[in-house]
């Protein structure tokens, strides 16, 4: 199978081929790597690369990956080549738009902006309290607050949409 990865903004081509029981040949931009990989515990893999042993924790959602190896976190995206092609032809995308969502379950303590208000990238827009700590969430882009989905005092789930900036 072929995949397109994005690492530090750079696109790479990745291909996976099964060569035996738990044996794989993974090609990254033309370089082939042979590994012995076993999913040993939930999201944790034991990987033998040559004779070198790695413990690798793979967390992935919606093609975005965060992989932990020896305390280091590697962030990248990985997408099926066909899906990527589909997405590219699928429309305009979301340039200049940013959804602020809650990274954890908690309570909305304070809205720092109102609908229609101009905001700058990195500006704090909402305060969410979780586990006794108040966390100010920032907006990723410069724009106008298009819609606010929550009220002060509301309890929100992890991943809940809080407000949209356009």
């Amino acid at each position, binding site marked *: 199978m072929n995949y397109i990865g994005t690492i530090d903004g750079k696109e790479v081509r990745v291909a996976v081929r099964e060569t035996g029981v738990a044996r794989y040949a993974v090609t990254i931009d033309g370089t082939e790597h042979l590994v012995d990989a076993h999913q040993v*515990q939930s999201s944790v893999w034991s990987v033998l690369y040559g004779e070198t042993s790695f413990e690798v924790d*793979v967390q992935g959602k919606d093609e975005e990956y965060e992989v932990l190896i020896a305390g280091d976190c*590697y962030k990248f995206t990985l997408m099926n080549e066909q899906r990527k092609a589909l997405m590219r032809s699928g429309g305009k995308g979301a340039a200049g738009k940013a959804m602020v969502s809650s990274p954890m379950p*908690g309570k909305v303590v304070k809205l720092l902006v109102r609908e229609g208000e101009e905001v700058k990238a990195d500006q704090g827009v909402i305060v969410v309290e979780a586990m006794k*700590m108040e*966390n100010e969430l920032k907006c990723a882009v410069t724009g106008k607050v298009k819609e606010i989905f929550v009220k002060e005092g509301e309890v929100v789930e992890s991943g809940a949409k809080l407000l949209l900036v356009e």
Partner: protein
Amino acid sequence: MFRKILIANRGEIAVRVERACREMGIRSVAVYSEVDRHALHVRCADEAYLIGPPSASESYLVIDKIIDVAKRSGAEAIHPGYGFLAENPRFAERCEREKIRLIGPSAHAMRTMGSKTLARKTVQAAGVPVVPGTVEPISTEEEVFRVAREIGFPVMLKATAGGGGKGLRLVRAESELASSLRMAKSEAKSAFSDDSVYIERYIEQPRHVEIQILGDRHGNYVHLCERECSIQRRHQKVVEESPSVIVTPEMRAAMGKVAIDAARAVRYEGAGTCEFLVDPARNFYFLEMNTRLQVEHPVTEMVTGVDIVKEQIRVAAGEPLSIRQEDVRQTGHAIECRVYAEDPDRNFFPCPGLITSLRTPGGAGVRDDSGVFEGFEIPIYYDPIISKLVAWGKDRTEAIARMKRALTEYVVTGVKTTIPFHIRVMNNRHFVEGNFDTNFIDKVFFKEEGERRLEHGDVAVITAAIQVFLEERKRAMAQKPVEGAGPVSMWKYSSRPGIRNLG
């Protein structure tokens, strides 16, 4: 000695106290909220009582409920752990009235040391050096401005009832003062329902060194040497160690004496900690006294061999301390890392949730004070601490190596944890050299981390790609039999001419 002790807490610290009770042959009584029925502290206790809804203000913080359980269970003493009711003088008074022994200092000692301003006055009178600042809580905004100008920036705003890094704000310039004051007051209000603040000069490049003390009812006091807790983020300790690399034997003796003087000034009983700031010239200033068992007490236990919780229990039962000052020795070096359910790669956002798998470290010199198990769901209502990992070594170098080794063995899945962060700290050159202050994590560490080249990107991408590959194949295989075995076979069956003809 007590026959039964109630532990008015939850999580790892409740388990810690229950362990001491078991070892001393004392029955332990746990209390739990509706979400904590499965929690480890319920399973490690001899008895357990439900005390209400998940929210701490309706369960673990309700004095009436705790007292009621103590009476119903026949517990003679209550250990409050840390947090919740641990430093609440009203709770201490209530216990006194109900003739239930609180394992901790008197309400008077708590009240004096709990009010930061009163504490300053008291210890200053006992000859203890303090940081320049106000003695009274400041009520009006105008006064905050006036005092801040007088002391000179940078200043620190602190909630009078504060603790654990909450209601604390560093203000570098007058222009930041108004908004910082608002944040500090609002945080203090929601955390302690008391929004009064006081103000102190901010010591540049301070190191946080604290002295563990023990006192009994017979006027005996010992100090168990220092712990350094300069590795903090957002003013919250995350790594602690003993001994401190900057403390000399003379300094240790001087700080120990001053800490005991402070304790004596309030006739302190039980375990307590005097926190000091140490400036680059090694002057030390009293910061506050914590009138409870500290989160980081295990590092002291590892280097001194003293079981602090057991001493607390003995002293509360009226026995004299089992150790004298001349018996106290620091042997080797111990480090503690606080493992929280937080995402270190997303600004330490709390990540409560289900622990889907767990592998805890072991081996020589490793202690894991944990409050969780595989299959436990970390509730959103309380501190997201998972465990305290402690490593002991014959010297600091060995302790660091062991901690690093133990951290890489530690596997927690389902929730993000601070384990990766701790590995990075243990690898950091400045930490290894002992060259840091309380600003290290926020000012130096993250910047250096941002510039560090990662080694194993290929392995990361390879493994993720294999996982995607297998997931896609699994999905594809799961779909096929449905197409083949569904309505198609029914149609074949009913259309077989032989069967139809039978009808």
